[in-house]
């Protein structure tokens, strides 16, 4: 390494331990808060659920950043190495959008099928049929 003295880098490691542990505890707290375990009834507020989800995702990405940059020493590598490893993961953004959209579409289609299945078909007696108009004549179906 040679970027930091031995004592300094040792200190940095234990700082990392405390940081990751605290962030994990905050995550668990927020997750339980969003599910209504800390304060009852909060699980019914839908915007809070989305907010908690967003906070959890941001905190997880922060943890990932810290592990890659400090523990895996990406901070001390050449910029080109960091870019060649990190840039391809941007493709995942496309995958996330595409597949989550598709998943939502499956659900909507299933709901649509369920609703169509429930639609009642009115039964019509043969005698009540008005017949078809064909060449200005009424064609009776029965006799």
């Amino acid at each position, binding site marked *: 390494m040679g970027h930091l003295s031995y004592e300094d880098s040792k200190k940095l*490691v234990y700082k990392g331990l405390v940081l990751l542990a605290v962030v994990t505890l905050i995550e668990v707290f927020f997750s339980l808060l969003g599910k209504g375990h800390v304060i009852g009834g909060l699980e019914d507020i839908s915007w809070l659920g989305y907010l908690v989800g967003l906070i959890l995702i941001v905190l997880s990405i922060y943890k990932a950043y810290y592990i890659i940059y400090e523990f895996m020493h990406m901070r001390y590598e050449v910029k080109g190495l960091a870019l060649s490893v990190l840039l391809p993961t941007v493709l*995942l953004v496309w995958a996330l959008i595409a597949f989550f959209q598709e998943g939502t579409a499956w659900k909507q289609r299933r709901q649509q099928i369920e609703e169509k299945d429930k639609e009642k078909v009115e039964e019509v007696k043969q005698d009540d049929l008005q017949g078809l108009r064909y060449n200005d004549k009424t064609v009776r179906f029965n006799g």
Partner: protein
Amino acid sequence: MATTDSVVEKQDLDNQGGSSWDGGEAPFKASYGKLMMWYFLLSDAFTFAGFLIAYGALRFSSPTWPVPDFVFSTAPFGVHHAPLIFVTIMSFLLIISSVTMVRAVQEGHRENKNGVVFWMLLTIIGGIGFLSCQAWEWTNLIATEHMTVNVNPFGTHVESGVYLDADGKETDEVFEAGDSYLIHKAGAAHGEDHGEGDHADHDYSQGDHAGYYVNSDNFLQRKYLVTDGPDAGEVKMQQFGPKAFGALFFFITGFHGFHVFSGVVFLIIIMVNAGSGLYMARKNGHEMVEKIGLYWHFVDLVWVFVFLVFYLL
């Protein structure tokens, strides 16, 4: 140095001072091993991302999904209703073992053989601890709660209602839409006391009963009276949860667990090598420790996201 690998060494010497086009420079100023470890980890990240995105797509496509803090609320020594506590302990184990791994790499830079072995040993213990926790979690899910790759007994109510007792009469067990339930097996001990008293005097033969239905796998699907919505007044029975949940859970956490397991195996091999003084004699010193360190941190990194999607969200 008149050994067979002197050819390689001679090539190295020839390349030194040559132009970049002769291979005289290390790309990105990194050694071959470290660079390739980074690219392997990148490809592995895509594999895991593929699995986790599949999980997300299936979860989005499902009208209901098992709530993690209901599914994962059990811990060893008879602890129930402790949502996410056990899995938080598992996360801490991996974080701590990641930190001890960083220490091992630092001692490697100082060429301190004993320090490397000591910190790697702690890392291995952390890894084995994590695997043991996962083994307990799986055993509990499979043996006690009867979740398998294609059976998911964790369901979610979509309407409010009240459960019926064994004779088909209404009980005082009321539930709301969004509440979770676990379908138990008839007659089997399920580790949790619901205060329903003794089951023994009821008929649990397969088929339809007044207050419940016993399916061909002996799962006891309780009946309930719907109290709101368009179907109010109808009697329905508990349905199984989304089928994909079990397969996704066992496959993704299993794939991660397999990474941890292979990591532990490689850590042991490299710890033994370090202890034997093998790396002290090498030109690149303890770089092997650095490379397994990269892999081990990656396993921790993947767990951050497995933890996020399976347990937190």
